[in-house]
């Protein structure tokens, strides 16, 4: 009823190729962004620290992997390691140059990750599909080994862990033990919105079309004049940049400190889940996937005891954990069967239906 395209005329090419051609979509997006910022002042610390910050960080990493796997069609299982490169680079940079604002280093650390990503992307010209997954697995295990074995990366500290030093912006602590979840949330939110906007422009532009052409058929794309090596490496670099920034955010703005173990293979799989459940080749899908995969286990952990207690079943914490595993696994299969193209497709279908609602067509 209220969601109609009637009366909105496109009178020039710019408005015709707009990403959000509907006025209602633009208003909706604006409302969501305003609500996200308002949440910093309305939500409590638990919501911000344990739900929203990690959700945004994982969304960013999912966008990174989605650029590689969803848009360019290159399967990567090394996301965790690329996130790690970003985190370690950020740590080295901000301890070596404490005078420069840390936000600059968060963005710069992504470039180190991008360089490493492009290096490990080199075999992608020759190796395809699941075979490429092994090349990225080599990256995953090799880089993780580096994180353990090279003490220079953590400035030779004895614990071998990364920790977030105190850093301020305009006198307000934004990193380290004194930073409130509120300020960290606002910082993460701003970075994620900025990078998502950039990604959206990238994938809708010439570069994005090159990636999509490579994904759909790299041989045909090559014949059309798209250089496969450069395009694939660019995808690896951009993807790793996003993952690297996400890794830096993960360690320094969410955990506040971490060991190499955070960037293990499970982290890579975790992000891959989000991308596939959310929808390959969709930015909004990355957010949906992160929300589902990250928030669902939290919700299950909170609600399962309450759900089971009326039946006289009182369960221990470990049983809850096992049930959670089972339910997450079952739901992944369920979602894949119901909608193999991910939540983003469901969102599309929902919007289509809403356009004609309350009539069937």
């Amino acid at each position, binding site marked *: 009823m209220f969601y109609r395209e009637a009366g909105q005329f496109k009178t020039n090419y710019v408005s015709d190729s707009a990403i959000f051609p509907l006025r209602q979509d633009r208003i909706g997006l604006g409302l969501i962004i305003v609500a996200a910022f308002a949440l910093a002042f309305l939500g409590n610390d638990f919501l911000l620290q344990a739900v929203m910050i990690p959700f945004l960080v994982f969304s960013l990493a999912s966008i990174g992997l989605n650029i590689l796997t969803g848009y360019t069609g290159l399967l990567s299982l090394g996301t965790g390691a690329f996130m790690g490169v970003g985190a370690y680079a950020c740590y080295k940079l901000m301890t070596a140059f404490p005078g420069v604002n840390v936000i600059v280093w968060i963005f710069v650390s992504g470039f180190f990750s991008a360089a490493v990503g492009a290096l490990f992307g080199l075999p992608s010209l020759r190796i395809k599909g699941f075979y490429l997954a*092994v090349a990225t697995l080599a990256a995953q295990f090799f880089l993780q*080994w580096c994180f353990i074995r090279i003490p220079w990366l953590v400035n030779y500290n004895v614990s071998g862990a990364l920790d977030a030093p105190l850093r301020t912006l305009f006198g307000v602590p934004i990193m380290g033990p004194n930073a409130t979840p509120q300020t960290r949330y606002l910082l993460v939110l701003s970075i994620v919105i900025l990078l998502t906007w950039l990604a959206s422009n990238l994938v809708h532009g010439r570069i994005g079309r090159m990636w999509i052409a490579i994904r759909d058929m790299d041989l045909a794309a090559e014949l059309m004049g798209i250089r496969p090596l450069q395009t694939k490496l660019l995808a690896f670099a951009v993807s790793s940049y996003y993952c690297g920034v996400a890794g830096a955010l993960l360690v320094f703005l969410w955990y506040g400190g971490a060991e190499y173990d955070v960037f293990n293979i499970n982290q890579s799989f975790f992000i891959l889940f989000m991308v596939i459940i959310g929808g390959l080749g969709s930015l909004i899908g990355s957010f949906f996937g992160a929300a589902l995969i990250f928030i669902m286990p939290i919700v299950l952990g909170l609600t399962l005891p309450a759900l089971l207690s009326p039946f006289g079943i009182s369960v221990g914490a470990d049983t809850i954990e096992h049930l959670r595993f089972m339910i997450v*696994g079952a739901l992944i*299969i369920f979602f894949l069967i119901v909608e193999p193209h991910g939540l983003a497709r469901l969102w599309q279908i929902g919007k289509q239906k809403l356009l004609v609602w309350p009539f069937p067509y």
Partner: protein
Amino acid sequence: MDILYKVFIEPFVFMGEAPDLLIQTLWEGLVSGVLYALIALGFVLIFKASGVFNFAQGIMVVFAALILVGLYEKGVPAFLALILAALAMLVLAVVVERVVLRPLVNQPDIILFMATFGLTYLLIGFGELIFGGSPREMITDALLLPQGTTEINALGGSIRIQHLDIAAAVIASLMIGLLAVFFSKTRIGRALRAVADSHKAALSVGISLNQIWVIVWFAAGLVALVAGIMWGARSGVSFSLQIIALKALPVLILGGFTSIPGAIIGGLIIGVGEKLGEFYWGPLVGGGIETWLAYVIALLFLLYRPQGLFGEKIIERI
């Protein structure tokens, strides 16, 4: 120059000086290679027949071994427990085919791959719920597996060979031989090969795809059971064992996804390469390179042959 000497000369000099250590390392590499090959075999079986890259193979290994040990601890005789565990794998195969594969027919590979991920989570949760998360001992005695070691004095030193390793190698070879006969001589085996060649053509001559999938998942389950017994005997039965599924990946890639001999030779190359690399070159960089060396070996082979050593030639058309 010094570094070149250390990388290219010194390890070989050391090999020549202590041939017994070299033989020992080679033997250990071969044994772990056979065990890798066993796991890779489960992957290949399923990939050939259904085109599914079954990530759940690792957890199937753990699951089968846990059922076996769990039943034995409940007082079931060992060999009855073995049969029951095999039956459980049959049930698993039927359920997977019904619930996961059938609704996902004709979906892209990556979706099926993800579905087996979901299956992995499900089985981890289910297994831990029933058997608990604590590691267990494999019942080597009750299954009449030999134990102890033999020392052979030769080449100016002694070589230690575990009897269990010999048994593992023999059983794995038997298993592989049986599968080869099964594939080439029986009616079902021919049907399996037909399905591997082309789903559509196999359907058109009246082969039931669903049946074939149940059979290959069951066969992969049996391979998983054997792998579970062997790995369990070496390193105990626990959920951390499912990580070996990741170790099987480079083996698989090296041999090619669709080739059973490839899985075996790939397993041996990876096993030997890993052990030699760790023993002779590992100390140069501080050790622990076993975690990634296998992938790098596979990567080097792949750059030369992108479809694996024995994989079908990839022909691309527009």
